[in-house]
């Protein structure tokens, strides 16, 4: 029975010592231990999270870079294409212009030639008329010795002249 009879003195000391022990340990041991354990865990957690976000950001950045490069390349290609088109168009235009100019020149030359030809024909006609008049005068001078013949002839000629 003695074994299971609590001793009054020991109850007193146990209460006292455990109380003091609890107070001192709680204040000087458990509080800093629990707090810094929680802090350390939090800082580790944060570091892991930070590394994850950094990794994601890096991947994003890399993808962005690639996208940027691709778009730059596309833009360059487009520029080259555009330039080529522009130059082609310019060449075509120049060719067309040259053609037109040449055609105009040719046309001008032809017109001038036609004018020259017409004036030359007119000059030749005039010369021929003068020549034929001179010739006819000489012929007439020799043939028209009598008046009748002369008149008859003049009439005929006049008719001819009218016809022509």
């Amino acid at each position: 029975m003695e074994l299971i009879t609590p001793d009054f003195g020991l109850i007193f000391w146990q209460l006292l010592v455990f109380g003091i022990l609890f107070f001192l340990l709680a204040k000087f041991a458990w509080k800093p231990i629990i707090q810094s354990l929680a802090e350390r865990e939090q800082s580790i957690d944060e570091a892991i999270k930070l590394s994850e976000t950094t990794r994601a950001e890096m991947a994003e950045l890399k993808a962005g870079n690639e996208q940027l490069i691709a778009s730059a390349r596309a833009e360059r290609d487009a520029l080259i294409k555009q330039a080529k088109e522009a130059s082609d168009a310019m060449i075509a235009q120049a060719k067309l212009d040259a053609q037109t100019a040449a055609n105009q020149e040719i046309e001008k030359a032809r017109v001038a030639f036609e004018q020259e030809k017409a004036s030359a024909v007119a000059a030749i006609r005039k010369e021929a008329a003068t020549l034929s008049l001179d010739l006819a005068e000489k012929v007439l001078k020799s043939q028209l010795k009598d008046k009748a013949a002369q008149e008859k002839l003049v009439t005929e000629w006049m008719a001819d002249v009218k016809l022509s």
Partner: protein
Amino acid sequence: MPIKTFFKKMYFSNIILGLLLSFSSFSLLANEEAVAHDTTQAHADTAAHAAAPAAHEAESTKFDPGKLILHHIADEHDWHFFTIGHFHATLPLPCIVYTASQGVQIFSSSNFKNEHHEEIPYNGFVLEHGKIHAENGEKVYDFSITKNVASLLVSAVLLLTIFIGIGKRYKENPHRAPKGIQSMFEPIIIFVRDEIAKNNIGEKHYRRFMPYLLTVFFFIWFNNMLGLVPGGANLTGNIAVTLVLAIIAFFVTNFNGRSTYWTHIFAMPGVPKWMLVILTPVEIVGIFMKPFSLMVRLFANITAGHIILLSLVSLIFIFENAALGLAVVPFSLFMNVIELIVAFIQAFIFTMLVSTYIGAAVEEHHH
């Protein structure tokens, strides 16, 4: 339910525990007889002692394992380490007694022994079976620093030195990896926090109970282990100590009881009204039964362990055969190692059960 998964996980140690408990009940039964025998023996002793010292010498040479074991697990007023022949390695401890007539008196326990190591009265007090009585029959309030109190103080100093030292290291560099003794205790502190407190009390409330749970855990564990040191006191196997621990657990649990906790006791939801006539008294008994079981469990387990070890060693002396040591020593070594495990498990179980009680008390309504 975390407690169920825990027991599923720990079923092996549970088997060991069960074995130990059955052992202990057996040994306790055996000791009841020993106590009865012991008292008659003691009466015979004192009679013989009064009659002739020579007769007493002859009487005391007969080995009585029951007396030896009870002497070892009981409290005493001096710290006895060992005896070789007539040399007693004993540390006398201060006796602090209060009586109505004489007031507070402080004196050394060595005053109760004469030069022949026989018990003598001192200053109107006698020491009988480890208890101080007044010769005039007055009631004596004994606040002595007994062996258990001395061991309690030693463990308190040990705990304070170790954990305040560790606490200082945490305060100085909180974000560094643990070092030395700090790294030995950190996993255990985290174990108490994560496996005991957080699992049973819940994420929301566990933090404010951490100082109490850690103190209880390390107090019980350290004192269990100090009790296993040869010459150590059987502090956690003392009913007064476990009584105080259980009373503190009782108050911590019930002062933190919320409405859900009290409704489950006085008006269990979801049962017919007439059932409450039976259920409520059962629940009210349960409030007191829980700390009572805590008290008995720790006391019985630790005392049983001591009894087993002492019984094993006593076998050699009972059979007066040194060759028996070949069998007894390895087996008591085995038991000692088991006791080391039990020292931890009992601290763990006490803390875990307290935290399940607290968990039930602080649980919030969520049906």
